[in-house]
């Protein structure tokens, strides 16, 4: 089930290259709501997302991704890829260790919109 594993290693802050990529629209900026990615990301944090990250390669375990919610139209979620299922779907889950704040969801690859590449700015 596990294809490969990217070690958990914090969240990079947006620096020159990332900001440049955002300025030329190769990064999208999103604001995080909710607590399921705590302690890494808190509500109000802004992140940059690479929408082209998975054009040439597949999402990898450990990636933090933005995805369309499989059943709630219009809802976009930010989660970490926990596992790749045998049928090709991805198991997404938040980082928050509190189970009340965290429940896994399963999404097909086509709903994954991009990979979170850095934190643009923390919640003020």
């Amino acid at each position, binding site marked *: 089930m596990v294809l490969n594993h990217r070690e958990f290693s914090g969240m990079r802050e947006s620096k020159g290259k990332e900001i440049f990529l955002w300025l030329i629209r190769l990064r999208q900026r999103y*604001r995080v709501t909710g607590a399921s990615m705590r302690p890494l990301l808190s509500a109000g944090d802004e992140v940059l997302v690479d929408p082209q990250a998975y054009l040439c390669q597949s999402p990898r375990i450990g990636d933090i991704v933005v995805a369309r919610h499989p059943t709630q139209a219009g809802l976009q979620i930010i989660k970490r890829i926990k596992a790749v299922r045998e049928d090709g779907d991805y198991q997404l889950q938040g980082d928050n260790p509190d189970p009340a704040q965290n429940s896994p969801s399963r999404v097909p690859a086509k709903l994954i919109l991009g990979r979170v590449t850095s934190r643009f700015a923390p919640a003020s």
Partner: protein
Amino acid sequence: MKLLTRTIKQFFPAQKTVSAHCDGPCGVYDPASARIAAEAALSMTKKILALDPNDRSHATANSLSRFITIKEEQAQLAKTDLLVLWTDYFKPPHLEEYPDLHDTFWQAAKLCSAVKVEVNLEKAEELLKAINKIHTIFWATKKREMPYYTAS
């Protein structure tokens, strides 16, 4: 660089949001989880009270210690489950229909705390009554008939 991005965020906040909120996506709520935890805490309270305080054997000390641990864990779990239900499931229109909703949850959460820190049979039973009331309100808001039952 940090100042730059913070300033951009302050004056031009991101228009798009991504939800890191589990309960939005899953939407599965049921007061049964709190009821099961509260039943376990009640059962442990009964078991603690059934122990002979004059029996100074290791076996009894061991049982007492385990019962206390489980009672505290389960009472805390019941409290967490109730708070999630209260803050995440219930919405302002529910409050209009059930004006004592906040008080019901507040009192139930306080009972969880009492059951956790004390050995109090009366409060453990009161907690189950409070959860029964929450069960009734919850399923009424879902417009579904759901009989209340207990495992023990």
